[in-house]
């Protein structure tokens, strides 16, 4: 029995009072040691790392596909946006043209109404002038009535000056 086994036994008996567990742990250690020794001392084969070129190509292709897809999507979205803007502009132009045409139509209808009004105008102008004259005459008479008695001679003078 080597010093190592003795030490192992000491360690195990300290912690494992169960002889079955202690025995199993001893066998376990011996097994791991044997496996490790056998694999550690074996001649090592260096395998050339396999180069997965197809993986690289596939990942590049996928990357390119994604990039192209996103670019195409962006271009399509821009095109749709431009098209809708163009349609809106056309609609606005049509609306403006319609408005202009309706205004022109209205303008064309207006002279007729104006001629109708001009035919009636002399009568209306005359009546308006009469009304004004009447109003002014009323005001004059009111104002003349309000002239104080002391100012009467002066008023008469003014009237006489006006007549002369």
């Amino acid at each position: 029995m080597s010093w190592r086994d003795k030490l192992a036994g000491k360690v195990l008996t300290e912690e494992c009072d169960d002889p079955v567990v202690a025995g199993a742990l001893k066998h376990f250690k011996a097994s791991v040691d044997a496996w490790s020794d056998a694999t550690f001392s074996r001649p090592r084969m260096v395998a050339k790392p396999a180069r997965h070129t197809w993986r690289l190509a596939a990942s590049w292709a996928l990357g390119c596909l994604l990039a192209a897809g996103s670019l195409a999507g962006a271009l399509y979205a821009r095109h749709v946006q431009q098209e809708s803007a163009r349609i809106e502009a056309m609609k606005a132009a049509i609306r403006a043209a319609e408005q202009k045409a309706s205004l022109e139509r209205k303008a064309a209808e207006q002279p007729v109404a104006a001629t109708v009004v001009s035919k009636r105008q002399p009568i209306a102008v005359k009546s308006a002038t009469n009304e004004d004259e009447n109003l002014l005459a009323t005001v004059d008479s009111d104002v003349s009535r309000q002239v104080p008695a002391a100012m009467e001679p002066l008023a008469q003078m003014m009237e006489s000056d006006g007549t002369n």
Partner: protein
Amino acid sequence: MRRMGTSTKSMAAGTAVKPMTADVAEEIAAREFASIVESHRPQIFRFLLASLRDVDLAETLTQECFLKAHRNWKHFRGDSTAMTWLMRIAINLQKDHWRNRRLQFWRHTQANAIGVDEASEWLPNGERNAEQQILAREQVAQVWKAVEGLSERQRTVFLLRYVEERELSEIARATGLSEGTVKAHLSRALGRVRAELRGTR
């Protein structure tokens, strides 16, 4: 510790001996490191092999462990033994490996880990008879099954104690746990092994 001793010696005899040049110091450090690799490599490999049950992965991680140790060798102050320091690096590498595998579950990873039955085939040819051999093999398979069911931390502590035969304080330093936690993990792991051996699970 050995490194500190060397430097103290050279300082003590500083007046008599030629001052150590950077090249000489590097050469000494390289020689020291080479001897460390030679003496500790089988143990690190065994621990990783038992943890991972994958020969190729254990070899790769052992190499990575010593590569990392070589890079940080000048920062090793000798607070713990070189073995504890190396074991700590190995445990961290193993943790990183499991974390990466969990994160990269979508990646095609080659899993070369062997089964419990295959692992328990390994037994030294002692003076036991055939019946004892079969019994031992069964017990080893049961312990492997119990180990498989342990958490990562419990498994590490269990293997450090019962395969690497490390002291509790050393395990605590290597794993960064307190001694109490190490004892708790060991107790749970042993309970599981005991249950597996009794067939109660």
